[in-house]
């Protein structure tokens, strides 16, 4: 199963990945119940992004919803255990 990697330089901090992940897991829009957590502070411009073990690679979906809905191309699926996966934030 692949895992999700984020390119911080491309991420705009819109939290769409967090929302659509929660939709996959719960059938509704529930940011607390998402494998992805995003926060950002406008005073520093920093976007914090993390993903936890609740990510199941969107089994039952045709594609990973977070990757498919990332308008900025910041997310992609990588093979678990790959060097790229190890570098993900």
């Amino acid at each position, binding site marked *: 199963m692949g895992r999700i990697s984020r390119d911080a330089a491309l991420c*705009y*901090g*819109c*939290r*769409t990945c967090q*929302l*659509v992940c*929660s*939709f996959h897991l*719960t*059938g*509704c*829009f*529930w*940011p*607390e*119940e998402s494998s992805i957590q995003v*926060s*950002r502070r*406008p*005073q*520093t*411009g920093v*976007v914090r992004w993390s993903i936890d073990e609740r990510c199941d690679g969107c089994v039952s979906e045709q594609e990973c919803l977070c990757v*498919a*809905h990332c*308008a*900025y191309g910041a997310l992609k699926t990588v093979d678990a255990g790959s060097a790229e996966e190890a570098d993900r934030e």
Partner: protein
Amino acid sequence: MNRHRDIRGGLAGRILRVDLSTGAISTEDSLGYAARTLGGRGTNSLILINEIVPGTRWDDPENLLCFGAGSLVGTAAPGACRTDVSTINVFSGGKGSANVGGFWGPELKYAGFDHIVIRGKAKQPVYLYVVDGRAEMRDANWLWGKTTSQTEAMLRKALHDEGIEIATIGPAGENRVRGSAIMVDTAKAAGGSGVGCVMGDKNLKAIVVRGHGKIDVFDPPGFMSAVATAYRQCEANREKVSSMRRSAVARFEDLEFEGWETCLVVRNGQDDYWDMGKRARLMNSETGVPSMRRAVRACPSCPTGCMPYMEKPRDKYPEMKGEGFWINAVMSISRFDISDPETALSFWLLANELGLDTDYVASSVAWLFECYERGLISKKDTDGLQLTWGNGPALIEMVRKVAYREGIGELLADGALEAAKKIGQNSEYYLSHVKGQPSIEPFRIPAGWGLGVGTSPVAGRHMRGAVRGPGHSGPSGLDFDSTDYRNQARAVVWQGKTKELEDNLGICNYIGTWSGAHFLTPANFAELVRTGLGLEVTEGDLMDHYSAIGRNLEKAFNSLHTDLGREDDLPPQRFQREAVKSGPHQGSRAEKDQYEDMLDEFYALWRWDKETGMQTRADLERLGLQDVAEKLDERLACREPLDESL
């Protein structure tokens, strides 16, 4: 319409009501309101018209301050993050409304509320803490006097919760400066109508929201399909406005961009043209404002991404950083003939810090600059400041003085019209205002823009239908020249209708119908409403029924609370009399006869009385607004039914 009209998803379902005078806190169902209005601003408007008695002033305890997140806010619908703030407009006395993006609105809905309705005044400064269906008033003396970013930082530190979102006023709102904003994420402003002034008058420093809840939609698979379609459409249309990903204002990095020649007002209205040298100095990528852009950020659920994060090093002003610098920043700074990028960015970020509406500051302070030039005021009146065109440090000092009511700033703090009365000497002629609210808008070149600004029910702002041609706004497929008076009314009404929907649903107009990209259309809105809210509507229902309800509620509020009439929808006198002095549009002025013709068509398209601009009982009844018609009858504001041919 005789289809399913109950709301069955999308909303949190509750309205939080807080009386700051008594401390009473209660909740109420929001779905009934939304079924009638589509939610968001529409519901705020309905609450205001139902509950505020004519004769109430903005600073009476009975005035309400209503926050309303749009019906689709908190879902993955593209751009669904916007919140409307409605109250009595401190300038016009009629409807006040300001709209803001950012993370606050979604968090409010996850906390279980679609709206917060504030009544009364607190005896001491308070902030409101709203968490998961509960709310409490808390002491805010320790926050009073702090800037918006200081307030945000102090609340985050005190509450130990990374997930809170904050809407706050700055010192300007505390000091009841009329043109005060409510700031979200420290950088996004609910700016117009003096909403921050009302919040300060109520001694309400901030509203902190935190929610761990969820938003259900009516038809989850159908809704996600509509969202996917919308995302594909956004991607397909993105190249039409490719600069957006570098921030909305990045269009002005192209020195040939038509907005340079249609949007600017220079030296407080003495001209509407800036030469290439000034454009380049302000917006060149090596040393201009874009050189201080470090990143671009997006609001929740937004695939457009238009908010620049800026870092301005210490120069002749202190170091500053934060999100911001908007198209209005360019429109503001040209009023002072200032092309220095350090001043332009400092002006913007300082106004955010102090919680000032930049449109208000730019228009009213530029007017003072002109009063100074004409000798109507002197250095004796300006605390020694030389208010001369191009004087950046004087502008920055004026921003601070206005926020703190210091010296000459006190003169402007109660509104520029009040200041004009004090200065006298026909100074009001040089003040650009619509319905009492100072305005930065151009009226002489883009006719549809002027019409949209002039007819805005919330007084002199461009977000209620102003259009500048097919490359920027207006319906796709309607090919019109922004300087040609023909076709403008039709485009302005279309743009105004789509904005009603966007503000009710909470979808940013950049993702909607505004930028020229037409990322989403009313057809998308209809699909999202059907699957998200469970309302069985067509695109036509939205455009002809719900959008008309929204606009008519605000129009009716103005009729009930003010004496505004047709003449108040016209451009300021100066722009009718004085022509543009230079540039390709030299000689253009706001031609009164042609504006009158546009108004005739505009009123007819909204089904209002052409002579007076007033609503008719027949049309209000068509919209199911009999109760509003009865209120208007009581004020003798309702006119005879329209000719059926209209």
